[in-house]
């Protein structure tokens, strides 16, 4: 427990914190009702100065732990998902992490064929982009219906397969934006590769 945490005020849900005026904006862990900002979780109160350009001076947040904690995938979130199985029109995935936080329970999601790539969306073949047991980075683009909870999209450069398993069962290393190579056998396989910054793209790693 750092010194700063022990000095910070602990709030409980429903505790009135500030007036929702020009000075404070309600952030994560708070809600704004009837012109006041109330805490909505039990945790430590953080008043964060807003970046320059925002109309309000500071953001009020209540957090239980120091890092950002997400409980459910939300619209627009970048998620880490595992591909469970693929079909001709979509790939069924299971969302494991949202942003930097690991979810306590995975959520089912679907990556539709037309959402895999940004260009030539109808000419895509699912099996040439993702395979079962791949780990992908994707964005949540919609809420689903009875069968599936969320719809995902990898139609951006930074999204796609991050970690893959080859047919032989070994780790795949990306060699271009559309191909990955098996680390042991050297076989090339087609995938929609994610442009993750600082990823080691050298093929000579063992």
């Amino acid at each position, binding site marked *: *427990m750092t010194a700063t*945490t022990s000095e910070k005020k*602990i709030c*409980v*849900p*429903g*505790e*009135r914190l500030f007036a929702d005026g020009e000075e404070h904006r309600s952030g994560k*862990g708070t*809600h704004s*009702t*009837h012109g006041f900002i*109330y805490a*909505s*979780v*039990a*945790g*430590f109160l953080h008043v964060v100065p807003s970046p320059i350009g925002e109309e309000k001076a500071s953001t009020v947040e209540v957090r*239980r*732990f120091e890092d950002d*904690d997400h*409980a*459910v995938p939300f619209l627009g979130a970048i998620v880490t998902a595992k591909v469970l199985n693929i079909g001709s029109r979509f790939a069924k995935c299971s969302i494991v992490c949202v942003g930097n936080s690991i979810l*306590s*329970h*995975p*959520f*089912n999601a679907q990556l539709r064929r037309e959402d895999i790539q940004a260009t030539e969306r109808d000419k895509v073949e699912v099996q040439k982009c993702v395979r079962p047991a791949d780990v992908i980075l994707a964005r949540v683009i919609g*809420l*689903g*219906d*009875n069968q599936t*909870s*969320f719809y995902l999209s990898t139609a951006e450069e930074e999204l796609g397969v991050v970690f893959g398993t080859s047919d032989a069962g070994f780790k795949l290393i990306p060699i271009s934006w559309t191909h990955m190579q098996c680390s042991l056998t050297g076989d090339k396989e087609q995938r929609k590769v994610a442009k993750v910054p600082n990823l080691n793209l050298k093929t000579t790693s063992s």
Partner: protein
Amino acid sequence: MRLPASSLPLSHFTQSSSGLPSHSDRQNTANMRPFFIRANVLESAKGSAYIEMGNTKLVCSVDGPKEITVSSDSGDAYSEGILNVRVKFAVFSHQERTVSDADAHRRIGDPTELETKLAANIQDGLSPAVCLDRIPRAQIDINCTILEDQGGVLSAALICASSALADAGIDMYDLVLSSSLAVVDNDQMIVDPSTTCLADKPISGSVTVALMPSLNQVVTCEQSGACSPETLRKAIRLATECCVKLHPLVQKALVTSVRLRSRPK
């Protein structure tokens, strides 16, 4: 194994006295029973709480948000999250270990009529307090186990469940506080009665009120029995006033649990 139809417990023949101090001789009827609450009592649960109101003891655990597993009446896709409440009475929770005939044909493991009703009441009472629009397509499991039932179970369960939800870090508009009272025949009202306290008095009505203290919103208002509208209005007012008295105690329990959780292990 079903009990034979004509078995009777010993308490049917003896004067019922639990041996533990009871409040049957309370002079001041506006006093509530001794109250104890603690959050974060179960290691394995995401959030949990334990409550004692007099001799009524119950523990509640919360898990989620997770994928929706229960089917519901509404046909459209869930734009808000839902609460899935399950209540279980421990076999020794009541004075008599009996199976009522309403439940005689249920399978082992299915909830009894009383458990289903209590679960529905808790779900109705907590739904307004939780920010369900922030967790679309997700459900939160709330499991209540009643260890001893000596009156006021719905109130205790609502307070315990809302503390467990807060302990689990689920977004809530406010805590839920609740209290019950009984109206006895001469329009006298007893706040937070225990079963032993009411054993020999003719009850004309019982009222349970739950509210969110900071926002001053009533989330549950339950009455049964038969009373005049004027008596009912006074009873609701009195119960609302008593709810608010519990607020500092619940706040303190949650603050303690946040502090304990943030300590490095």
